[in-house]
């Protein structure tokens, strides 16, 4: 049953990892920008859930509905006003730019929320379910299902809606999209806004499970890196596959080598994948 527990844990964690990474992957794929603010957006989302629950007793499920539009607007404006100015510059410039923005946001969070670790504790607690010997806490289960739902929503959006098709078109061939009458600047901003909204929602879900502190943002960002590279950039299914693989490797790794080595293992895996299979497990060019 030990093996079954590891597997279930991996699936639960893997869906959350996918949710962390999917906005990052969207921005990287469409805008060709490595968005280093992603981790801080997630933490900001977690603080939003924490604040809404503690001040107004709004449960985190509803906080998602607040976080999504709020973060979309934030991301949209950030892209429109700042990042669009350097979007055609080389990697170094865009990467350093998002790093600078991340420093500002992270410092602001430390300044206003302090660096203490906090925890959103639901009262009454939701308990846990157990089937045979496999135990899963209910809040984790709900977070996993919500993460899957968000992922599915993005998939549908990209697949079915007009804006979604335009985003995919820009991702596939920017110049051809311009010729077809797509307003690339606005699509960039929408894609970045979507990425930010997903990060905010992911943050709300993370608040249910993990401690909240501005210091955790780099950890989330690292996970997003690894998941994107493992799964392959540019597809929703890739992010899911990458998330599951990462969670599985971490689970098995920490069982055999101890939890201290899980991060090392995941980053070594990242480097190996980058060298041997940079397109990832399910890599292909289009974003769905």
């Amino acid at each position, binding site marked *: 049953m030990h093996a079954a527990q590891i597997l279930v844990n991996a699936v639960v964690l893997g869906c959350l990892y996918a949710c962390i990474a999917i906005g990052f992957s969207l921005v*990287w794929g469409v805008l*060709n920008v*490595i968005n280093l603010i992603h981790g801080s957006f997630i933490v900001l989302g977690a603080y939003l859930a924490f604040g809404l629950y503690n001040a107004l007793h709004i449960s985190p499920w509803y906080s998602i509905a607040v976080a999504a539009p709020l973060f979309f607007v934030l991301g949209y404006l950030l892209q429109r006003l*700042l990042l669009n*100015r*350097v979007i*055609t*510059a*080389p*990697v*170094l*410039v865009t*990467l*350093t*730019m998002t*790093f*600078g*923005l*991340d*420093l*500002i946001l*992270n*410092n*602001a969070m430390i*300044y206003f929320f302090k660096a203490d670790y906090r925890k959103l504790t639901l009262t009454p607690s939701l308990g846990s379910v157990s089937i045979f010997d496999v135990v899963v806490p209910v809040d984790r289960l709900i977070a996993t299902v919500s993460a899957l739902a968000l992922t599915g929503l993005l998939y549908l959006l990209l697949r079915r809606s007009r804006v979604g098709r335009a985003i995919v078109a820009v991702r596939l061939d920017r110049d051809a999209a311009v010729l077809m009458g797509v307003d690339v600047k606005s699509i960039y901003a929408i894609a970045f806004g979507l990425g930010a909204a997903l990060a905010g929602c992911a943050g709300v879900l993370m608040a249910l499970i993990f401690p909240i502190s501005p210091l955790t943002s*780099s950890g989330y960002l*690292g996970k997003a*890196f*690894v998941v994107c*590279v493992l799964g392959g950039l540019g597809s929703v299914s890739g992010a899911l596959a990458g998330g599951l693989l990462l969670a599985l490797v971490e689970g098995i790794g920490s069982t055999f080598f101890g939890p*201290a*080595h899980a*991060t*090392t293992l995941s*980053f*070594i895996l*990242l*480097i190996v994948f*980058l*060298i041997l299979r*940079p397109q990832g497990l399910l890599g292909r060019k289009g974003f769905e």
Partner: protein
Amino acid sequence: MTKSNIALLVLLAVVASLPLFGGAYALRLGTIACMYAIMALSWNVVGGFAGYPSFATAAFFGFGAYTAGVLLNKGLPLWLCVVIAAVTALLIAAVLGAALLRLRGHYFAIASLSLVEVLRELVNNATDLTGGGMGLNIPLGSGSGVLAEAMFFFYAMWILLLLTVLMVMAVAGSKLGFGLACIRQNETASSMVGLNTTLYKSIAFGLSACFVSAAGGVYAAWVHYIDPSDVFDILYSVKPIVMALMGGLGSPLGVACGAFLYLGLEEVVWRNYIQIHTGVLGLIIVLLLLFLPHGLISLRPANLWRRVKHV
């Protein structure tokens, strides 16, 4: 010898005369200034000359600090520790470079970033050797007095900076530098005309690691205590890039000036706004990239009314 190289050497000589004018505080600033300049100039070899966005500086800095720290605890003399740190970093970076530098653009950036994470976690977990998260204490020197010791480490760092500058000048003026410039402009084309790009990139990566690692070693001996989150701080990877962007990518004189200017800014911000100093640093980065993407070196009167354009 070009005009800008001479200017760079003159600048170095000016820095060396610092102890004549200032006390312990000036010496501390001078030591950090030399350290930053070493990092920025080293990064410039791979980031400026070859055009690869490396974020691995912190990895080699921490590697050097820990190599020297562990060896100093074993009782080896400082100069030997620093030499060992430099040589091992050179070899490791050259071997790693052969694998990592096949990646381009974002993928290389992420791989070099993860190098920092991997090394930090390894050091964090090798508690027996490195003390893990508790950090590593490094024995004090001979006890020759505070000012004498500050003077010693200032000149140690300054000599490393001098060596770095000489290395950068040698690279810039050699076939290697020319090859790296070709790689920056068009890697596929340069390998088509017979340039061994893998070899060139590996050498560049090794050279960019070696002096950073040595500086890490001197830093460890200087501060007497290191811990993983301090020396493997990702900011050590980003600061050299900001300095290089500030001064002007690719030009050694510009990069060195950028490093000194950056330190000045950092010190002012740190002293006045300690609570928000990283935020202010972020703001400086953003403003710099938006309004001065070619660095201070582009601030010549003739360039002022030219439209800002990214390379």
